[in-house]
């Protein structure tokens, strides 16, 4: 469709190399400042390359901070448990909706779809979760509110079932006397592995990155996830950023994690995602394409 235009191709590649660098350079700043000594940071500021090299920040993180270790464990467990429950709920809800024989299918579909159009917002939700369910400072707060099941993924999953699972297979299994649960877990789900992987990834990423639930419902530092720790440390940077005088007070500085340590925690928070990304990017791109166009 285009002539073999070498110059044009070179220009295109240059533009994309620029875009790729623009996407990555900010991470470089994060990583290199976590590897720079405090004195150098104070003198020369943050940069894309470490002016000197020290692992002091990471030593601090691994040796002296129980908080960060626990936060890490919480994030991993919450992500694993949350993703499992969420995918299960999503699949169990999507499968019946894909069955044309189900009476009341349209009503339930509408109940689901309506939640994408209208919602009560933060105030009633916050009051309900805290006053009715007493979720404050419990791990349920990290697992349940707004994260557990989203209409978006249910609809994605249902469309996949409708388009890819031939009704004949289900019929045949039922004639053989299989129960619906067996049909779903023995026949439908094994045929839907790619879509389940995609949805599990997107849900998992949401759990890993979630900081709003911690912000709303968790005040107890013992129950902080990695994102909640980052959130709290951000406050401290904020404190310093707005009060330059405080920096002069050295006793204050000793109690707060240093500038490099904070960047180090941010690196530790994103590293698992960045490390795993090459392996899941294929599923992820597919999820974006499927979900983005017909959500």
């Amino acid at each position, binding site marked *: *469709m*285009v002539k073999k235009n070498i110059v044009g*191709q070179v220009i*295109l590649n240059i533009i*994309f190399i620029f*875009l790729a660098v623009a*996407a990555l350079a*900010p*991470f470089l*700043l*994060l990583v290199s400042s976590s590897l720079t000594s405090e004195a150098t940071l*104070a003198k*020369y*500021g943050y*940069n*894309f390359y470490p002016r000197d090299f020290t692992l002091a920040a990471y030593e601090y993180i691994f040796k002296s901070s129980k908080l960060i270790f626990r936060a890490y464990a919480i994030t991993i467990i919450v992500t694993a448990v949350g993703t499992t429950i969420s995918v299960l*709920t999503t699949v*169990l*809800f999507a*499968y019946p909706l894909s*069955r044309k024989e*189900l009476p009341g299918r349209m009503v339930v579909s509408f*109940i*689901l779809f309506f939640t994408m159009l*209208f*919602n*009560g*917002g*933060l*105030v*009633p*939700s916050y*009051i309900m979760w805290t*006053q009715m*369910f007493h979720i404050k400072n419990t791990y349920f707060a990290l697992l349940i509110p707004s994260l*557990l*099941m989203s209409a978006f993924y*249910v609809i994605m999953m249902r469309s996949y079932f409708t388009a890819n699972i031939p009704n004949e297979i289900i019929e045949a299994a039922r004639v053989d006397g299989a129960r*619906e649960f067996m049909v*779903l877990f023995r026949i439908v789900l094994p045929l839907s592995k790619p879509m389940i992987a995609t949805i599990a990834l997107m849900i998992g990423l949401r759990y890993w*990155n979630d*900081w709003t639930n911690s912000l709303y419902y968790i005040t107890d530092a013992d129950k902080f996830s990695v*994102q909640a720790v*980052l*959130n709290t440390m*951000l406050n401290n*940077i*904020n404190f310093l950023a*707005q009060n*330059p005088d405080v920096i002069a007070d050295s006793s204050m500085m000793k109690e707060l994690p240093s*500038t490099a340590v*904070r960047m180090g925690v941010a690196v530790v*928070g*994103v590293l698992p*995602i960045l490390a795993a990304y090459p392996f899941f*990017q294929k599923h992820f*791109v597919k999820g*974006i*394409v499927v979900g*983005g166009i017909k959500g």
Partner: protein
Amino acid sequence: MQKRKNKNKAAHRIMTLELYLMMIPGLLYLIINNYIPMGGLVIAFKQFNYQQGIFGSAWKDPLIGNFTYLFKTQDAVNIIRNTLAYNITFIVLGQILAITIAIMLNFMRGTKNKKIYQTVILIPYLISMIVVAYIVFGFLSTETGLVNKMIVAAGGKKINFYSTKTYWPLIFIVIHLWKGFGYSSIIYYATVIGIDSALYEAAAIDGANVPQQIWHVTLPGLKNTIITLVLMSLGGIMYSDFGLFYQVPMRSTIISDVTDTIDVFVFRALTSMNDVGRSSAAGFIQSIVGFLLVVSVNLIVRKIDKESALF
């Protein structure tokens, strides 16, 4: 015959029962997580107190008291203006950038480099706004930020970004585009590669050059996707990326005139000002207007082009 029919009926009933059993967890969740809070919106018309809860609290007298209180201050105008203005800017610039990138990607040859670019430009989408706030701080911090170091090196004067309003609209736009451009260009790219290549060949035979091909083949082919995506964004125009506007400016209240959106205000009023009245009034407006917008935009689109409508 009759017996068999009865057996079928019984089997159908059991099937229905089993299928509904599967949906119980999801239905329960929708009721609790989504529908109770919808009912809870009445809180905007109540004199809320925590002992009596949302439904037990007395009605506000006058009923719209929370709203008049909200609109008495400049806050209401600011947060609605900011939310709408930022969203419209984001939608327009976001689509232009994404479509441009998708088209360029389509004209590029070679599969390996293409795949690498696609993979890399998605990375900003993967990280949380908190981490973005750290990165932005690395650039903008008054004492140690890269931007200020460069300004000083060039002989300029340091800018205290976190207390200067001027730059924030630009900063938000840059961050929003940086974080989202990979995501949206991949959605457009998926549509672009779906366009029949025979159309390009036909256009080329008619003597169309590349820009003409883009104009007459690519863009019409993208029309439905553009409408769908813009429609979805317009439906969410009352909502903002809470993390972007709350965390990235480091919660600085000095610049809240240009950084506070409805979501930030609702959160701040609810938690730090303990002002449930104004918070719930703002949230109510957000929910209702947001809902009316999705429905009406969708109605308009249905009139123009039924295929592109969401529902």
